[in-house]
């Protein structure tokens, strides 16, 4: 905002006899609420377009043309407007609306999940006439019908407020539920044969003002007045703000909290219903060690048997003591709370003395690169006049609420979006430019766009598309959402693209990794060669030698190097912090060889993953609803995680495990609570100075760094050479989908079955050239392996590409990836 711009004047409105000041363009219902006058409403929702449908917010207004009844959700405040929300006419109109809403509403409140937290119930008590004169027969429908795998619709209870249908159409872009019929027979329903299979369907349940929409995981589970409620943060990339609802020491549902800076009250279904996994009987509840089938501890045993913490920690400490620090590696930790990450970084780097620490599984970007670039914010990315470059996983599949925020900004025409991914994202219909560079060549495409070299095609992108991309970014503040969109290409092309984009003026980055607290992990030093506070080993040695007493002398391995060293026998002990290399590391063969070769695997986790099952020592951790802590989202925004229920068995927070393990190693981390860790973080990391827990808990959290910092320049590598695709081959691209075989998803009864089987997605023309159609099998052959899987024809995929989603039933595309090459080319043939 320039200095000459003056603050716009407030608009004076007379509300119930007193003068209030409304903001320019503000709706009457909002202005009144800000000034302490609550106008009743059902259909109005501040994150969606007003429709003026329920008529409940009707009030008596005089805009200078005489007194009339107007819906306050549709009326923009204008100077001199006189409003009476308490007049007889207002009351009569509101009573009339309540009466009309209730004549067909079944009064089954005693068995309705909404009873007790129902806006219709509450407003009937507050505003309605209190007595019905309706003697006719009520409208009836079949009691709840399943409109999707998760959501049930009871049309008798529905008051047709258009909230769910508006959300589906306007916010989520899945207009799968609509009004049907008219007049008194109007109903919300799905189209025949097309369920409401939206990734965001749970939000409609949350915003339904009656009990018409219910979600399977919560149906008949509790009464609202029995619930304990706490504000917390969902550990995902956006750091969505939530309210955790529990009863009898069990989490029963998660509700989105409207935070201006992050999720606006929305949640993706995978996150909203993920609490089912926390209550799953498979949760790790006591430490496990190797033993025999009789449950006796035995280091060479085939089974994992329960034991005490004392025994498990002693065994773990023994394994850690048995070798050189460099023979120990720590993988994972990007899913922990920030305090856990600090405690584990301190344990690994100061107590154990190893720099073989990496929170990422060779599926991200180097910590040095991430630390060296200015961080953006979601608000900045979606601000009017901004531009966004998408260089990461499809937000719709992986970062649900970020997708909703971007979608909103695009629909409003606020921003431009340049997609540089190898396939079209869920935002493709709204994006300004979809360049679709040939996989592997995104670096040169980004360089061409940045330098304005658009006279010839680059990386398969035509000059007019390049020109459109240049125009879309020109003169705008640019936010790059960066990550790895396909694991079939190495990190190098993405690094090239990031390095090129970093030279744009006014550019900021949001590194969107899959794991929730990647930003925290990097800030806390859970990466090779770095120490907490985004400093390199060399830079930070002085400070942390003083604070910690000891830091590793030389830089360590990243995860790939650790696994290679483990397979070669030089790393003998691996600690897995909520990491599952077997299912999650791109090179599945290497992961299997490494885990088979090491002497000891110590796994800290909440659920039995594939890697946990082969571990020697398993330490059960507490989940985010069971402990306090702090979450760092990809903007560097700190927000509180608040524990509310007990952990299963003796599971405990990750930081506590680190502290106990240190004690077994005769060291004291000096932590006896989350607060004590945070105090040390604030004291030792300059970036975090002043970030008190109190500030973090206020409002939308606190974005780190508090002050702009000079970031160290990242050493830009040479631009990677990529082989040109020959005309007999296709290029392999891996994708990620919302519902897959992720351990958490598979432990949620409502969602485990929602993922489809793996398919080979092809462009229609490529499919036609091969003579295959949907569902027919093809063989995909790379230099590494051959897999057979059915075809899905999809124009989202560019020509010359075969896209396969990771981690689904059926073929595993990781088998095809050539890890020695920048890209993996494959032959696709009919078997």
């Amino acid at each position, binding site marked *: 905002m320039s200095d000459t711009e003056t603050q716009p004047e407030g608009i004076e409105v007379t509300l119930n006899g007193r003068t209030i000041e409304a903001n320019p363009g503000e709706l009457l219902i909002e202005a009144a609420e800000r000034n302490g006058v609550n106008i009743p409403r059902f259909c109005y929702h501040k994150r969606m377009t007003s429709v003026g449908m329920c008529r409940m917010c009707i009030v008596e207004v005089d805009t200078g043309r005489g007194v009339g*009844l107007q*819906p306050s959700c549709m009326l923009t405040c204008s100077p001199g407007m006189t409003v009476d929300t308490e007049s007889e006419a207002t009351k009569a*109109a509101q009573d009339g609306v309540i009466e*009309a809403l209730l004549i067909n509403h079944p009064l089954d409140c005693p068995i309705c999940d909404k009873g007790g937290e129902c806006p219709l119930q509450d407003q009937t008590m507050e505003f309605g006439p209190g007595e019905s*004169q*309706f003697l006719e027969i009520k409208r009836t429908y079949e009691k709840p019908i399943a409109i999707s795998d998760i959501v049930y619709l009871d049309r008798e209870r529905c008051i047709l407020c258009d909230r769910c249908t508006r959300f589906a159409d306007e916010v989520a872009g899945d207009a799968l539920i609509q009004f049907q019929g008219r*007049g*008194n027979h*109007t109903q919300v329903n799905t189209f025949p044969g097309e369920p409401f299979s939206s990734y965001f369907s749970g939000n409609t349940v949350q915003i339904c003002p009656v009990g018409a929409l219910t979600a399977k995981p919560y149906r008949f589970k509790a009464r609202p007045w029995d619930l304990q409620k706490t504000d917390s943060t969902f550990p995902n990339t956006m750091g969505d703000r939530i309210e955790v609802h529990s009863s009898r020491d069990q989490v029963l549902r998660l509700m989105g909290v409207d935070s201006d800076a992050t999720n606006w009250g929305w949640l993706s279904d995978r996150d909203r219903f993920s609490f089912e996994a926390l209550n799953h009987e498979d949760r790790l509840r006591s430490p496990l060690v190797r033993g025999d089938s009789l449950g006796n501890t035995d280091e060479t045993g085939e089974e994992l048997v329960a034991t005490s913490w004392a025994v498990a920690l002693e065994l773990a400490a023994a394994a850690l003591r048995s070798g050189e620090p460099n023979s120990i590696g720590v993988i994972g930790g990007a899913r922990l709370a920030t305090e856990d990450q600090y405690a584990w970084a301190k344990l690994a780097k100061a107590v154990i003395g190893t720099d073989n620490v990496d929170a990422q599984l060779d599926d991200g970007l180097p910590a040095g690169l991430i630390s060296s670039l200015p961080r953006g914010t979601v608000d900045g990315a979606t601000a009017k006049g901004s531009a966004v470059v998408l260089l990461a996983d499809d937000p719709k599949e992986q970062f649900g609420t970020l997708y909703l925020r971007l979608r909103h900004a695009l629909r409003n025409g606020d921003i431009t979006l340049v997609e540089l991914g190898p396939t079209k994202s869920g935002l493709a219909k709204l994006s300004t430019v979809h360049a679709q560079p040939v996989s592997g060549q995104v670096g040169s495409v980004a360089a061409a766009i940045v330098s304005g070299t658009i006279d010839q095609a680059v990386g398969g992108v035509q000059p007019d598309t390049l020109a459109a991309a240049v125009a879309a970014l020109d003169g705008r503040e640019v936010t790059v959402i960066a990550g790895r969109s396909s694991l079939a290409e190495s990190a190098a092309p993405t690094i090239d693209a990031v390095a090129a984009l970093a030279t744009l003026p006014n550019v900021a980055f949001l590194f969107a990794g899959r794991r929730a607290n990647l930003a925290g992990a990097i800030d806390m030093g859970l990466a090779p060669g770095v120490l907490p506070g985004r400093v390199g080993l060399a830079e930070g040695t002085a400070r942390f030698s003083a604070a910690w007493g000891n830091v590793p002398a030389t830089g360590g391995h990243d995860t790939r190097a650790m696994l290679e060293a483990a397979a070669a026998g030089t790393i003998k002990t691996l600690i897995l912090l909520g990491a599952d290399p077997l299912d999650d590391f791109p090179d599945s063969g290497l992961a299997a060889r490494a885990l088979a070769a090491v002497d000891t695997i110590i796994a800290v986790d909440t659920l039995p993953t594939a890697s946990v099952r082969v571990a020697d020592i398993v330490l059960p951790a507490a989940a985010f609803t069971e402990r306090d802590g702090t979450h760092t989202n990809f903007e560097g925004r700190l927000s509180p995680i608040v524990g509310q229920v007990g952990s299963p068995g003796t599971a405990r927070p990750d930081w506590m495990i680190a502290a106990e393990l240190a004690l077994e190693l005769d060291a004291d981390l000096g932590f006896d609570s989350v607060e004590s860790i945070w105090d040390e973080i604030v004291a030792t990391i300059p970036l975090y100075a002043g970030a008190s827990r109190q500030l973090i808990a206020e409002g939308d959290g606190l974005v780190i760094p508090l002050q702009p910092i000079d970031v160290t320049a990242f050493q830009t590598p040479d631009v990677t050479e990529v082989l040109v695709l020959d005309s007999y081959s296709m290029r392999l691209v891996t994708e990620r989908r919302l519902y897959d075989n992720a351990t958490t998803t598979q432990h949620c009864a409502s969602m485990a079955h929602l993922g489809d089987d793996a398919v080979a997605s092809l462009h229609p023309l490529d499919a036609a050239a091969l003579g295959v159609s949907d569902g027919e099998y093809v063989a995909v052959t790379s230099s590494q392996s051959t897999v057979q899987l059915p075809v899905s024809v999809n124009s989202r995929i560019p020509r010359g590409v075969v896209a396969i989603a990771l981690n689904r039933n059926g073929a595993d595309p990781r088998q095809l990836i050539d890890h020695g090459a920048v890209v993996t080319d494959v032959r696709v043939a009919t078997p």
Partner: protein
Amino acid sequence: MSQAHLQNTPGYVNNEGMKIVTSRFGYEDSFTIDRYLATGGYEALRKGLTMAPGDVHGEVKNASLLGRGGAGFPAGVKWGFCPPGKFPRYLVVNGDESEPGTYKDRLLMQRDPHQIIEGCLLTCYALGLSQCFLYVRGEMALAQERIADALNDAYEAGYVGKNILGSNFSVDIVLHWGAGAYIVGEETALIESLEGNRGMPRLKPPFFPAAIGLYGQPTIVNNIETLANVPWIITNGADEYKKYGSETSPGTRLFAVSGHVKRPGVYEVEHGVTTFRDLIYGDNFCQGIRDDNELKMFIPGGASAPWFFPEQLDLPLEARSVGAAGSMLGSGAIVVMDETTDAVKAAARIVRFFSRESCGKCTPCREGTTWEEDILNRMLSGKGRPGDIETLLKAASNISPGVYPVAAWEEGGLVAVPFPPKQTTICPLGPSSVAPIASAIRRFRSEFEAKIDEAAHATIEVSVGGGS
């Protein structure tokens, strides 16, 4: 095409008055381009193209051509409401005539489609538009066919399309058939429907079509009959037009008379000077009530209008006087009911229409109109209860609070309450359902009470011992 297909539909009655929009109705082939050209067709367009667009607009404005869709707003003034500099802008022609009792636009479309097309072209020229959408009600098969044929002929003859008559002026006219919803006659719902959405009204403000209309662009929505007047005004001039009708309502107007009259039909009469009595009893017009019965009541402006009674017969057919007297002239549909009519039944029949046609958007209308219908049906089926009249009025007041417009009735101590009613809904459909209820209960309360009384004294036959 069979010859039968070409025959004109009944409905129009040729009276000996001034004719502006029905001048060709007497010809069997009035809808063909040949007949149109032979009777001065497209001459107004030729003349208009020699004038500056602003002068064409000015001529219509000077003529004080009042909108014929129901609200009676001056068309020339409406045309001036588009925010300057915002393009593209559209003309939408509302041919979704569905008010019970109204069938004048249908006849205009069936019998003189070229006149409408020419009106559209002149309007587009006056306002600098190049795109016109003609929305025809879904059920009007013959009108659709004739409009489509006429438009094809006009395109072929070079009256519509690119560089019309060799000028720089180009217009495309797009035809759109409705899917059969009364509410789509409401202009904002019509725009929603044109955009491919459910026909549900938008709230004004902010959605005044002239500012934010079709696809969010400035849009002029005009009625068929309004546009049919435009060619005549351009050919003959505003001053000539104003020689007919009254000072405030110049020109002629079509009235569709139905119900218990001897000669129902559509009549073109001078606007504002003819009275209801002239129209219903005049020899030149409807020639009185059937079987020479007494007039019980009549609806002056379509089913949405509050009822009038013999006291109001001498009012002129002019929007302002009718509004002041407690009803509305609306779309020019007069429904006459004689002494044999059951007031409760008549009210129930009209309420049923509105409850069936409610779009379902606003709560009071969606729930309230069905409630009204249910109560009335119960009364008619002999199951009325004491208190039903009060409940009916309460249900109605949820949709239209306050005192509903009513005609004066000296004997009953009623003073006229002027139109329009208050409403808790977006559009007037809901409040329209209250018109027959308020009118009938105020004037014929005894008939309602009789129904309730009858139910209270009804004997229920009970068979004993298995009966015979």
